[in-house]
C-alpha cells in the first residue's frame, strides 16, 4: 500500500497563533483515517492544508506522492500557479461542516457544476452520473430541489455526491455531521460507511466516536497542534496511552 497523504513536520500559523506545530502522519491508500481532538486542536486546519485551502508555513505535505502547493526543482521550491493548484484539487473531494452547497442551483445542478465546468464532461453525461450519485446517497427524488428545500442531512448527502462527481481519489470530511440534528446524523454516516466499503481513501475529522471505531482504519488524536496519539481506532479509543487522550475521551464518550 502506498501513502495517499504524507505529512512531514507540517507547521501552520495564523499570525502569532501557532495552529499546527509539526504534524507527521501517513494516510494509506484505501484507508479511512479519522482525526479527533478538542476544538482548536488544528485538525480542521490540517485537513484544509491537504487541498491547499491553507498554505503551510513549514514542513512538507504530499498527496499521492506529489508536493501540495509547490513544485520542487533541485533544492528550490516553486509556488504553484492558481490554475495548477486547481488541477490538483480535482482529485480531492471535500465535504464541509456547513455543507456549502450552491444555494442558487438545484441538487442536480450542484452535482454537475464541476464536472461540466472543470472537466468538460457533456451535460447529458454529467446528468446521468449525477442521477446515479443521488441514488447512491438515497436522494434520487430530490434532484430538482434547491438546497433551502432540503434538510441538513439531505444537504450534506448532496454535498457528498457533489464531491464524488469529480471522481476523486481522496475524500476529506470536515466534521460532516457536526451541524446536523442528532436524528439526521445516521443517514450521512451510512453514506460515508458505504463509501468506505467501496475502497475510497477518506480522511475524516469527526466527533462521532462510534463511526471512528466501526469504520476507521486509523485514528489520530490531536491537541495543541500536534499528534498526541495514533493507532487503530479500537486501541486508541478503548485503551488510550496518554493522559490528555484519556481526559478528552472521558468527556466525549
Amino acid at each position, binding site marked *: 500500500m502506498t501513502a495517499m497523504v504524507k505529512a512531514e513536520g507540517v507547521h501552520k500559523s495564523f499570525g502569532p497563533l501557532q495552529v499546527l506545530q509539526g504534524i507527521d502522519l501517513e494516510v494509506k491508500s484505501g484507508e479511512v483515517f479519522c482525526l479527533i481532538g478538542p476544538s482548536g486542536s488544528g485538525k480542521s486546519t490540517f485537513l484544509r492544508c491537504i*487541498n491547499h*485551502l491553507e498554505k503551510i508555513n513549514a514542513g512538507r505535505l504530499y498527496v499521492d506522492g506529489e508536493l501540495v502547493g509547490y513544485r520542487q526543482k533541485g533544492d528550490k521550491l516553486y509556488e504553484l500557479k*492558481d*490554475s495548477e493548484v*486547481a*488541477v*490538483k*484539487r*480535482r482529485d*480531492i*473531494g*471535500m465535504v*464541509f461542516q*456547513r455543507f*456549502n*452547497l*450552491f*444555494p*442558487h*442551483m*438545484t441538487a442536480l445542478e450542484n452535482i454537475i*457544476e*464541476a464536472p461540466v*465546468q*472543470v472537466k468538460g464532461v457533456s451535460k447529458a453525461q454529467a446528468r446521468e452520473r449525477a442521477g446515479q450519485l443521488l441514488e447512491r446517497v438515497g436522494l434520487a427524488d430530490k434532484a430538482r430541489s*434547491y*438546497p*433551502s*428545500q432540503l434538510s441538513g442531512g439531505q444537504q450534506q448527502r448532496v*454535498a457528498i455526491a*457533489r*464531491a464524488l462527481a*469529480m471522481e476523486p481519489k481522496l475524500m476529506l470530511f470536515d466534521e460532516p455531521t457536526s451541524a446536523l440534528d442528532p436524528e439526521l446524523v445516521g443517514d450521512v454516516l451510512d453514506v460515508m460507511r458505504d463509501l468506505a466499503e467501496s475502497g475510497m481513501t477518506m480522511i475524516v475529522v469527526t466527533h462521532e466516536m462510534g463511526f471512528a471505531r466501526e469504520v476507521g482504519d486509523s485514528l489520530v488524536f490531536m491537541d495543541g497542534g500536534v499528534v498526541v496519539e495514533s493507532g487503530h481506532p479500537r486501541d486508541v479509543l478503548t485503551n488510550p496511552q496518554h493522559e490528555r487522550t484519556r481526559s478528552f475521551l472521558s468527556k466525549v464518550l
Partner: protein
Amino acid sequence: MTVDIDKTAGPEDTPPAGPEAIRAIPVRHYGRYFSAAVAIAILVAIIYAFAQGKINWGAIPDYFFDDRIVKGVGQTLLLTVLSMLIGIVGGILLAVMRLSKNPVTSSIAWFYIWFFRGTPVLVQLVVWFNLGLVFEYINLGPIYKDYWSSFMTPLLTALLGLGLNEAAYMAEICRAGLLSVDEGQTEASHALGMSHSKTLRRIVIPQAMRVIVPPTGNEVINMLKTTSLVSVVQFYELFRYAQDIGQTSGAPVEMYFLAAAWYLILTSILSVGQYYIERYYARGSSRTLPDTPLQKIKANMLSLSNRPAAGGGA
C-alpha cells in the same frame, strides 16, 4: 392591529366547535380620525389651488404624443440604457479591482470612486462638455485623430458624464453584493477545482445578484430622471423637447407637467420590470417564490369563485 378583533367577532364566523371567539369592543382611535381628516383637508386644498391656477390642461393631451415628445422619450430611454450599461460594466470592473489583492488596482479603484462620487454629476457633465477648450484635438495615435468638438458629440458627452459617474455608485453596490456571499461558497468551489474566474462567474456573482439587483433597480430609475440634466450639454431628450415645445406653444408649465407624467409612466414600467428580475434572482433563497401579480390575481379569482362552496355561511 387591534381592530382585527372586530372582524372575527361576527356570529357567522364563529367556528362550530372549539373555543368561543373573543367579543370585545375595539379601542376607538380618535387620533387616527383626526389625522385622516387633516390630511384629506390639505389634499383638497392643494387640488383646489391647482384647479384655480390658470392652467391650460387641454394642452397636455394635445402634445402628449407629439412627434418631438415621442422622440424625446426614445432618446431618454436610450440614454438611460446606455449609461446604465457603462455604469454596470464599469461598476463590476471597479468592484473587482477594489477587492483585488493588488494594492495598485485597488487604490486606483478607490480613487476613481472617491472622485466621481464626490463631485456633482451636473458639474461632471459641464466639464466633459467644455474639455474642448483645453484639448483642441483628440489624438489616439495612428487609430484616430479628430477635432475635439466633432469627436465629443452631445450623446458622447452625456454618456460619459452619466455613465462614468454611475460606475462609481455601481462599484459600491457590486462590492457590497460580492462581500455578501459566504466565503464557504468560494472555498467549496475552489475545492471542486474551479478557477478564480469561474468561481466568480458561476458561483459568487449569481448569488451576489440578489443583493445587487434591488439597489440597481433604484439606480436605473434614478438614472432615468437624471438624464433630464443633459439638456445642459445640448443633448435633446424628453425634458429638453418638452421645454422647447413649452417655449414655442406658450404653455411652458403644462409641458413640464407633461414631461413629469411621462417620467412617471416610464419609472412605473421600470418598477414592474425590477420586480420580475428580483424574483428571478431570489430562486433558491426562499422556499417558495412570491407570486407574480398575475398569479395573485388568478389566485384571488379562484378563491372568490370557491368562496360560497367553502364558506357556506351568511
